[in-house]
């Protein structure tokens, strides 16, 4: 009885300390606030935009009331929705290699070679037989700038169908995958690390980006994932950061969205790779911790 008293006392102190401690947000909960519903819904938005693009291309090529401008606009909307989701280009996106299907950099010469070869073109052929530089949203853009003959229409239709199928698949996959990310802290840690890394890759790619709309969508997507946009109950990963880090991150993202200059992009990159990575212990580098592997 006497011996058990110190143990009881220690146990009570620990329980008391836990009970009195501040109610810090859990990683699982923070991630779940984003990935249970909002992120899958954003993937559904992308799927809707891709379906609209499919319809627009069909109308254009059916010779009805379709206009090239409508297709161009639909391509831009699809690209905006896809790019906005840049921080979430992992999981199903990686599994399906979607970034090489939806909107890779294209080669005009490769596309012309495809158009000239006379082989039937459909979504399956584009996915399985041709390269990333011959398909996707960029490929549609590339063809729309020239005269649209029957062969070009066949190509545009196939690409629009390809993007629609891909977007539908991603929306379906994310509906199942998203809620798993916030299920516990282990999954949440992995999700945060992936999301932050994708954001950094996206920021690096923006240095060479000439399309202002792409830069804007990318940065808004990163802003939402990091600090929220003030309109959702989810506030990105900011609840897991100290206030000074969250404030600095928000300020620098706002500045970059207003003016995506190299200097502003660098400021965002520095804040994420130093303050955010450090605060969340994402890629803990034991500078002196005797780690060996």
């Amino acid at each position, binding site marked *: 009885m006497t011996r058990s008293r110190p143990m009881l006392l220690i146990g009570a102190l620990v329980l008391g300390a836990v009970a009195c401690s501040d109610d810090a947000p859990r990683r699982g909960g923070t991630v779940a606030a984003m990935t249970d519903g909002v992120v899958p819904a954003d993937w559904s938005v992308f799927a809707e935009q891709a379906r609209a693009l499919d319809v627009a291309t069909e109308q254009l090529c059916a010779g009805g009331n379709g206009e090239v401008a409508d297709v161009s606009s639909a391509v831009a909307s699809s690209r905006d929705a896809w790019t906005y989701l840049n921080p979430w280009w992992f999981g199903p996106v990686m599994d399906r290699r979607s970034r090489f299907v939806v909107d890779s950099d294209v080669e005009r010469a490769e596309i012309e070679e495809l158009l000239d070869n006379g082989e039937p073109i459909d979504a399956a052929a584009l996915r399985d037989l041709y390269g990333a530089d011959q398909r996707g949203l960029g490929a549609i853009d590339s063809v729309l700038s020239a005269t649209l003959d029957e062969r070009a229409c066949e190509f545009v239709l196939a690409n629009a169908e390809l993007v629609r199928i891909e977007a539908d698949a991603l929306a379906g996959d994310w509906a199942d995958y998203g809620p798993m990310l916030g299920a516990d802290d282990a999954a949440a840690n992995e999700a945060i690390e992936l999301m932050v890394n994708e954001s950094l890759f996206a920021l690096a790619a923006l240095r060479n980006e000439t399309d202002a709309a792409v830069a804007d969508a990318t940065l808004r997507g990163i802003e939402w994932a990091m600090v929220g946009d003030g309109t959702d109950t989810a506030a990105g990963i900011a609840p897991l950061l100290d206030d000074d880090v969250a404030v600095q991150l928000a300020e620098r993202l706002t500045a970059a969205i207003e003016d995506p200059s190299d200097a502003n992009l660098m400021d965002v990159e520095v804040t994420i790779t130093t303050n955010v*990575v*450090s605060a969340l212990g994402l890629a803990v580098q034991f500078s002196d911790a005797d780690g060996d592997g």
Partner: protein
Amino acid sequence: MPTATAERPGPNGSDLVDATAGPTLRQARAPTGWREQLGRPVPSASYVAFRWAFGALVVIGQVRFLARGWVEEFYLAPDVHLTYPGLEWVRPLPAPAMYAVVLGLAGLGVAIAAGWRTRVAAAMFAIAFTYTELIDAALYLNHYWFISLAAVVLAVVPTPREGAVAWVSVLAMRGQLAVVYVFAGLAKLNEDWLLRGEPLSTWLAARTDRPLIGPILDEPFVGLGLSWAGALFDLTIVGWLLWRRSRPIAYIALVVFHVATAALFQIGMFPAVMILLTPIFFSPSWPHELARRVRSVLAVEPTTSLAPVTVEPARTKRRPVGRVVFGVFVAMAALNLMLPLRHYVAEGNVRWNDDGYLLSWRVMLTERASHVRFNVTDTLTGATERVAAETVLTDWQAASAVVRADLILATGHLIAAHYRDRLGRDVEVRADAFVAWNGRLAARWVDPTVNLAALSRFAPASAYVLDRP
């Protein structure tokens, strides 16, 4: 603090000495000089156990190195290596020879464990192992430095004879281990560790996914409490291990401490090294005492090998430690004291600028996340190109290079050499480096006006690292 066995007199004043019991009180109190004291015989069992454990750890370490493909990845694959100042000439050997070195190290581990030409094997091991560690500074680990020092100790101190070994052989190993704990503890006496609980708080908060204790790891009191516990542990564990009455609890605490750190952090073989080698703090005859207890529990008759070793005093008489051994012993003691303290004479804070970080047991004191780019300026055209460390380094080298100030300088030199080869003329290299450390907002780290290419590798950190904000 005297050892338990040293407090025990010989059996009935007999001329025969039970070598498992350690030196007699009369021997211990005899008015002799330092060299005689250090040469007095004690049971060799704990020395042999240490040797076994050390050899086994060496073999496991080298097999692990081979099995993980690290010979190729760490020594052979990189185009360039991050060298230590003045040791740029240390290069990896061609592939077959490099593999032979690692296999040879494992073979030397077997020889050390078996006690076959221990001193020669340990000397060869110390040289070859240190060579492998000097190839790339990004591979630096505190416990590798300990392994090198322990091998030197084994190469220098007298080996067992007739079941006894000179007291200096046990003392030197204890001293080498004590240095690790005590200086690791002293290094923790800073405001980050004691007042902010950093970097433990940051690291633990990222481990809430661990079973059982995970959910409380991000509570502020946990990081701070464990920081204090860790500092107290490091500062006092040697004393607790030496005191016979606290020894069992102390060793259990030591095992729990190192197992816990192994479970929470990626620290390789360090916990195993400390768990297996610290029994040297026990009585010099602890393996025999343990065997006796096991026998009594199992009710097994003693075998020859496990029986107490009784030797004639003539064979265990004091042999003063040789002048060379004594000299090396003193030199190592001085080295062990000076290296960890040298940062006090360097300019700036070692936790910020790393001046005095190497070889000084500053373990797990800093969490850094950095952003480093190098601006390379062509001296002829004035054009500036912005590059990352990965331009010349592999990913694992770069990961270390961007969180250590000395390696940023080394990388600057490698980038300069890379461009010199490409352009056929000198370039200037400046670092655009920011670092967040121990939970502080990131700040500029390296002076962006300093041309690293023109700076000596021996330059103090204060020549290129900005003052701590």
